[in-house]
Each structure stands twice: as structure tokens, then as C-alpha cells.
């Protein structure tokens, strides 16, 4: 899977599909500028790892551990974060 890393959609999965406790390394963030900048400012850039944690009782949002802190993301936002597992 690392042979052709210039192809954009390598074997990435979105952060939404992480199982609880599973970790992945951010490879890209899709979506609009506002979301990307916000996530960038909170430590989410390529190469940073994130771990899925607790899902809220009503199924959304979900908390993740990034850079030694916890962040809450809605599904619609987490699915824009593409990870390599």
C-alpha cells in the first residue's frame, strides 16, 4: 500500500470508521477551508495520530485523542479526516 503514495486515495479510511481504541495517522483532511483550518489549529495535520474514544449516547458526536488531549467531533466532520491505519 505504500508503493504508490502519490495516488491521493491510497488505502485511507475516514476517522468515523475507527473502532473504539483504534489508532490511525492523519493523511489528509478534506472538506471546506473553515473545517480544515479549525482542525489544523487544534493539532490535526498530516502525520499526527488520532485514537477513537467514546461515542455519545445518541450516536454522535464522538471523542478522539489527539496530541495528548481529547476532542469531540461530529460524524460529518470526522468523515473528512482521512487516516492510514
Amino acid at each position, binding site marked *: 500500500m505504500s508503493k504508490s503514495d502519490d495516488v*491521493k486515495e491510497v488505502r485511507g479510511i475516514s476517522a468515523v470508521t475507527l473502532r473504539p481504541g483504534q489508532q490511525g495517522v492523519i493523511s489528509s*483532511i478534506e472538506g471546506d*477551508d*473553515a*473545517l*480544515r*483550518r*479549525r*482542525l*489544523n*489549529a*487544534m*493539532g490535526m*495535520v*498530516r*502525520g*499526527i495520530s488520532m485514537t477513537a*474514544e*467514546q*461515542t*455519545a*449516547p*445518541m*450516536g*454522535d*458526536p464522538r*471523542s478522539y*485523542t*489527539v*496530541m*495528548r*488531549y*481529547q*476532542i*469531540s*467531533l*461530529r460524524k460529518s*466532520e470526522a468523515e473528512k479526516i482521512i487516516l492510514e491505519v
Partner: protein
Amino acid sequence: MNENHRTITVALVGNPNSGKTSLSNQLTGFRDSVANYPRVTVAKKEHVIEHQGWTIRVVDLPGIYSLTSQSPDERIGREFIQNEQPDIVLNVLDAGNLERNLFLTTQLLEMGSPLIVALNMIDEAHDQGITFDIPALRSMLGGPVVEVDSARGKGIGELLNIIVAVACGRIDTSRIDLPYDSHLEQAISRTQDEIAALHPENLNLRQSRWLAIKLLEGDEEIAQQEGDHTRLIQAVREDRRALARQHGDEVDTMFAMARYGFIHGMLAEARRMPEETVKHGDVNRRLDAVFLSRWMGLPLFLGLMWVMFEATFTVGEIPMDWIDTGVGWISDRLDSLIPAGLVHDMLIDGIIAGVGGTIVFLPNIVILFFFLAFFSETGYLARAAFLMDRMMHVFGLHGKAFIPLVIGFGCNVPAVMAARTIESNKARLITILVSPFMSCSARLPVFILFAGAFFAQAAGTVVFAMYVLSIAVAMLASIFLSKFVVTGASEPFVMELPPYRIPTLRGVLFHMWEKAMSFLRKVAGVILIGSIIIWFLQAFPQNVDWDQDYDGQIAALTEQAQTSQRDEHIAALQRERAQEKMRKSYLGRIGIAVSPVFSPLDFAWQDTVAILTGFVAKEVVVATYAVLYNQGESETEESNSLRAAIAGSMAPLTAFAFMVFALLYAPCIATIAAIKAEAGGWRWAGFSVAFSLGLAYSLALAITLVGFLLP
């Protein structure tokens, strides 16, 4: 900064939840809201202190993650640093989470104000085994770095000394430029050249570099500022396009990655961290597994809310009795001390009755704020937003709106102001417009009075129902507003969940103390004036054109032999006279004039008057009743409590409709002013008044009609 100009302006900047507000309090010896919840500082606050003969002006800026122009908070922070040019920018960081906290620092470095870096919550970091090589950090950041712990007051003296030393020029803060890769650097210097040509006046190299970076990052606000310089904008656009094509990343992401690269390099050298610090995260995980769990999360949340309300009302009863007795004692003392006359009446019937009738509710407010302070200091308040987001989302709101709305239970003014932490314009405006429906602590006295007077057996339940109704109305109103009034797309919900912390007793108590004080200030100010105005309106005109000669009749009766029948007759005449006096006072005339509007709701003119005065502040409603009914009572043999006095004045159904009306009708003057400021203009403030009045009237009418139709 020279010696004869001995004032230093220090801007406090830091991430939300970095302990910035508590550091500010430690620095200034003044306490205000400190909470383990992101973005407690909703507007910039200022304190002035003296140190070593210097006057230090500490400006506490809102907590922010970056200096883009994405949210009003970020704009406030950036504009302050840019336009006011503070002598020192004091950057507060959570020492346990420097990776993310230093991102803001890298942007501050580029802005060019002298920077002092404070590693806060250092004890917590040390407890986790994290240590720092401070000299190394100093040389890499090119300025002073201080370890502090704002919760325990550690390092504060050193920090103040360094502030003065920097202001004197004894410590150098000429910092480094953050290095970017060669392509970015080339683009920066090209843009800088363009800028230098356009702004030959007074832009130094650091300023033009910052401007160039912001433009290349695609900052909309800076692009707008420079919007006239088509050539510059065009060149930047081309550079951005070329860079993105070359690297496969957006340019702002390239800058962000370079910043994190710098941060990681720095921390690799200057931070020692044992492997097992992960343990710290485990505690959080275990607690989250309970508090956020699928099955227990919501029941626990509702349970905690219920405990909060029960404690507020049942425990609050006890000190309420003490205050009631105390106010009665003062009133009696003054009654015998001061000779009868206008001053006597104003003091006892106006001021003591009005203010005393309101302070009685202080215990309830203190207890309520004890719980809110406890939740926010432990980190639970953020979890509450997390739990509620899915539901809030359904109503067109953010989980983040949950916090302003919860603050609204205390007071709508900070609630409206706290809404500015929501980036999305749409979600923010809706939150501002619905937060006045949250039942604030000023409405609590009204509910307690009415619930106690009309629904004594189920007082707690009725008050709780008011709170539930206030939430329901806020939610339904926000659906309505997002569908029909404030339309547009919604924005991302990205929220930090701060680590669970054991709250400090001091922190909780001060938080509580502060709220109690602000409530008392309201009593002293608005309520005092309100009480005097109401007393004046009901005491004047002094010479009433009586329908019958009460004094003559009473005098004639007194001449007769004493029988129980005669005494009853006298008492009845006295009550009639008191009533006529009220009816013919200015207040009564105004009340009667507007009462036809409220006649479908069965409200009496006393109620209309109370509603009118409630515009000043909702707790004045209680003061109004106190003055209105005490006046009539004072002439009879015994002085009943206010509850007993109003108990017979209306049917329970009408009382319930009145409570609902009081809950929803127009926000108080202070809230209207806050809405005007936050939503940007009288248009929304006016809308809010009309919207809530309409809603209150319709709902109260619906209750009256349904109650009328039911057996």
C-alpha cells in the same frame, strides 16, 4: 517603554482551558469566573495592579486556538494585539499539552509584540513526570519562559518581575523568525517585496513578513484589508495556486505543518516525558466510560441536574427563613425609630420591602451557582455539551450552545455574551435569540413566590416544570428560527474535552461568591431604583379624591361602643380605603390602562403592573408584589408574609398562566442591551422583544383556554 512612562499593558493570550483566567486572577489578586471549561472569558477583561513601582494593566483576552479570523474571539485577540500594540503579550500555555498550545505561540511570535511564555499548570505536568529544559526553550523561542501554577500561585512573583524586567528592557525579547521550507520562504519574500512597495510608511520587516504569511495562508480578513491592491492579491493568488499544485497540500496546511514541525523539534529537545504518562489519559478514559457511556451517560446527566434543583430548593429553604426573619426585624426596628411620614414610608414600604423581598432568594442562587461552578471546574460541563450535541443539532443548535443556555439559567446577559464562542454566525444568532427563554435566576424568585403561594404541596414540581418548559420553548423556538428566520448552512462542531480535574474548594467558592455578589449588585442598583420608582408611583398622588369619607366614617364608628361587629366594619373600611388608594395611584392608573390587553388571560391590574415593572429586571416583579400588597396590609392588625398576601388574589390556573407569561415575556433591559451588542443592532433586539412577547401571550392564553375547557 521608558522610565517616566511607568504603565505596562500586558495582553494575556492562551488556548481555552489553559488556566489563563486563573493566572490573571493570581496576577491581579482579583477573582472572576475561572472554569475548567473552554472559553470562559467571553470578552476581554481588564485589571490594573502595581508592582515595583510600575502600573501593570492586565488585559485578559478570550481563549483562542489560533490567530486566524475565523471566530469573533480570534478577531478580538488579533485586533487587540495588532491595533493596541500591548507592551507585552503574555502567552499562557497548558504545560501538559504543549504540542497544541504552542501552535498559537508560533503565530504570536510572528506578530511581533514582546512575548513572555508562561508554562501553566506546571505542577500537574510534574506530577505526570514531565520536565522542561527552560534555558533551551528560552533560546529556541528567543524570549523569557516561566514555569507557573496558577491554581497554587506558584511562580507568580517571578512572572511579575519578568514583566517589569522586559518593560525596562533588561530582558531581551528579540525573537526568532519561524523557518519555513524554501518554497514557502521564497513566496514569503516575494510577497514581502510587493507589500514593501505598497506600504512604504512604517511597516518593519517583521510586520510585512506577518502580513505576507497571512495573505499566503488565505486569511480572508487580511485579504479584504489589502483588497485595493489588486496586483498584490493577484500575485498571492498565483503563489498559492502554484504552491498547492507543487506540494499537494493547501498552503495554510503547509504553514500549519511547518509550525507543528518546529514545535515537535523544540519539544524533542527541551521536554523530558516518561513513557507511562499515558496513564493520565487512562483516568480520563475510565471516567468517560462512565459519564459518557451509552446507558449511563444521559441518566447520570439528568440525575445530576435533578440533584442540583432539589438542593437549590429544599436546602435553600433554611437560610431563606433566616433572611426573612432578619429583614422583618430591621423593618420593625426602623418602623419604631423613624417618625411617620414620607421618608418612613419610602424606606419601609419601598426600599426595605422591595430589596428584602428579593435578597431572600440569595440562598437559592448561591446553591445553584455552587453546582454550576462544580460542574465546570471538574470538566463535566464540557461532557454535558458532548452528551447533548446530537439533540441540540436536531434543534438547529450546537452542543456548544448548551453552555450559553446553561449559563442562561443563572443570568441571560452572560448567556447572550457567551454565545460569541460559537463560530457559525447562524448558530450564534439563534443561540442569542433563544437564550432569553432560559429561566434565569431573576425569574426564580417569581416562580418560588407563586409556586409557594398557589401550589404549596407541589412547589418543587411546579418550579421544575417551569425549567422544563423554558428548555422546551428554547428548543422549539430555535427550530422555528433556523427554518424561517435565520437561514443558511451550519458550521463545524469541534470542541475540546478538558481533562477531569478535582475542583479546588477555593475555585468553586470564589465562582459562587462572584455570582452571589453580582446578584447583590443587581439588588443594590437596579432593584433599589426599581423599588423607589414603584413606591413613588404607588404612593403618589398623595391627595386622593376619595369616593367616600373613610376617615369620617371610621371616626364616627370609633365613637360607638366597642363590639366585634364595629371592629370588623372599621377593618373593612380601612381595606377599602387602601384599595382605592392603590387604584388611584399612578401605578394603578397605568396598570388599569393596559389591563384590557391582558383580560383574556384573567390578569388583574396588579399583575399587569408587576409585568410592566419586570421589564427593568424580572426579580422586580417580586418587589412589585411586595410593595403592592404590603401597602394594603400594613394598616391591618397583622403583617402577613407576601405569599399569604397574594395567595387569594387569583385562581391557580391564572397563577400558572402568569408564571408561564413571566417566564417567556420580553428579556429584561440588560439582556436587550446585550442582544443588541452581540447580534449587531436594534433590529435583532427589537425582534427578540416582539418574538418573546408574542410567544408569552399566546402560550399563557392557550393555558387559560385549555384550563377553561377542561372540567
